[in-house]
């Protein structure tokens, strides 16, 4: 029995222990990390009252610039709006990452006890799928999706309109006392945003570079055409001053030009032949064309060409 247990343990430890250790380490690291990043990105709204409305200015999670959310109320007076730490409302069923612009505590007053009021949150930071989640600790399920209407206004501004009944399930004070406390915040799907933006931006790079490629291909054609035209102009000028050449002596037409590699080989052969006739033989081509001196020479040439790309500081 003991031996069997030992065998099982050995198999387990060999196969799974390293993986388990790694997983534990990563999980621990992840937990520590998550707390670290979130603290840095925690939104800190600043409120400013202008007449009947209150404007919150904050840097939301995953943003570098400030956004504004305007709060107003209909059917009641907007008394105050304040920010709330998510830790107080943290429950397993919600993820702070989905609440990019923090939680708010909205206080309404001066309404008939038991009556309904409408709270509006207006911002160009919201999108058409933004929802408003309400947190009410007194309920068995504290987090509730409000039936907030999401209205599109001009200039890409969205308005969330939440209807709250005094003493109703969305009212955190739970009493029909002519005052409403609404705790909640706008919610967007973190993963939907992350994945959506991943695809859009990855293919965005393809689009940008493809457009650049097209631009370069077109400009390349233009420049090559200009170069050909210029060359043809030079040819014509030369031809005008030159004696007429018999048809059989004319070089092949542009379309039938020799392969550049072959042309280079012919040129090299001619050069070597002429150089050889002037001085003592300097090159022996009888050996392998991939002899060490040839490869060394090519390496030297390429190294010289590479100098321009040698970014020493990168």
């Amino acid at each position, binding site marked *: 029995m003991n031996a069997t247990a030992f065998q099982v343990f050995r198999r387990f430890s060999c196969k799974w222990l390293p993986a388990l250790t790694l997983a534990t380490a990563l999980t621990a690291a992840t937990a520590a990390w998550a707390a670290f990043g979130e603290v840095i990105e925690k939104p800190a709204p600043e409120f400013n009252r202008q007449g009947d409305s209150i404007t919150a200015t904050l840097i939301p999670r995953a943003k570098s610039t400030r956004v504004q959310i305007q709060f107003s109320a209909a059917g009641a007076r907007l008394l105050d709006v304040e920010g709330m730490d998510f830790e107080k409302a943290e429950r397993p069923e919600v993820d702070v990452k989905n609440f990019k612009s923090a939680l708010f505590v909205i206080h309404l007053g001066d309404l008939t006890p038991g009556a309904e009021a409408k709270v509006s949150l207006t911002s160009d930071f919201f999108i058409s799928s933004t929802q408003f989640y309400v947190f009410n600790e007194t309920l068995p399920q504290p987090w509730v999706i409000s039936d907030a209407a999401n209205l599109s206004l001009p200039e890409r501004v969205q308005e969330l309109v939440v209807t709250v009944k005094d003493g109703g399930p969305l009212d955190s004070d739970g009493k029909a006392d002519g005052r409403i406390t609404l705790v909640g915040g706008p919610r967007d799907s973190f993963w939907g945003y992350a994945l959506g933006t991943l695809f859009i931006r990855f293919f965005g790079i393809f689009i940008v570079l493809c457009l*650049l490629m097209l631009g370069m291909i077109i400009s*390349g054609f233009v420049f090559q055409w200009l170069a050909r035209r210029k060359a043809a102009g030079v040819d014509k000028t030369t031809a005008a001053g030159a004696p007429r050449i018999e048809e059989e002596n004319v070089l092949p037409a542009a379309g039938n030009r020799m392969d550049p590699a072959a042309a280079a080989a012919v040129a090299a052969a001619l050069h070597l032949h002429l150089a050889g006739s002037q001085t003592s033989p300097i090159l022996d081509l009888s050996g392998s064309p991939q002899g060490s001196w040839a490869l060394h020479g090519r390496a030297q040439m390429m190294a010289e060409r590479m100098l321009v790309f040698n970014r020493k500081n990168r």
Partner: protein
Amino acid sequence: MSWAYVFELIQNIMITQTGIPNLAIKEVFMIGVAFFFLYLAVAKKYEPLLLVPIGFGIFLVNFPLVPLMGFSEHGNPELIRAFYKYGIEWEIIPCVIFLGLGAMTDFGPLIANPKTLIIGAGAQLGVFITYIGVLFFGFTLKEAASVGIIGGADGPTTIYLTAKLAPHLLGANALAAYSYMAMVPLIQPPIMRLMTTPAQRLIKMRQLRPVSDREKLLFPLIAAILIILLIPAVAPLMGMFMFGNFMRECGVVKRLSDTAQNALMNIVTIFLGLSVGATMQADKFLSWKPLLIFSFGLMDFVVCTFGGILTVHIMNLFLKEKINPLIGSAGVSAVPMSARVSHSEGLKADPDNWLIMHAMGPNLAGVIGSASAAGMFIAMFQ
């Protein structure tokens, strides 16, 4: 004055004004890390121009009570903090480095074969895969983007983006980016061999057409117009890059171009290295974070190499004149190391196959691609 008073005075001086009693184990460890980087730079010659100032920056700031990275009583930044604040926090140094890089770059191979731009885009695959991968490990979106860009293998871009989005990760990200850039010859070849068949490695590519000076002159203007119109957020980096290249190609400001390539580049490299190294203080750096970043950075680099080669394979399905897939790995913007690796792997397969100039195309495209990816991320968080 009694002896007791004198001893107390000495004790106070020792404790409050000298570093010895304040030296902690973690600081000694970080000084060891600094020595390791200095060793890599000096003895192994791994990116010495960056690792020497980075290593020395780590070395200096990990002594206790040193007035280097803090603020004075009057709120003024101390020496290296000033370099960091005005150079990196204000996002000046990465852009100046891009100016120098632009002045150093010959876009000829890319202009001669613009198709290679697609490879530069494909090689950004790792950036986005890593971006999603690290989100599963609890990173915030901004942190994920700054870690993802490591795979683009572009040091200044990594520093620029990280300083903008997640400055607390600057040290780890910069070090990971430069370390993996130095390790390109070790990381890429196995992936290249895995992703290609011997027959594919033998593909010979047609010699690139000559590019006229006028084309080279117009390229930075055309590229700047298109890229900045499409991704305005990348204007600081790309604008400086193309400005540097325009100075090089116009030929009438040779002195400015030389300064941008040499003196200016060297000056900002010193301040950049010291500032990046100085962010690695023991109390901030010694945690799981750098380890995670280094692991994800490696994965990122591998996926980027994979993405570049895969892109060539996909392109070859549609092209008459096939591209040697070995140049796909050069789509990361480690210029010119990854192009050299493509070339040397090509030579191993066929000693007569010279891929270097063909590989420079995707390599330069990688610079534009990684800067574009950074621009995309910056725009995302605006």
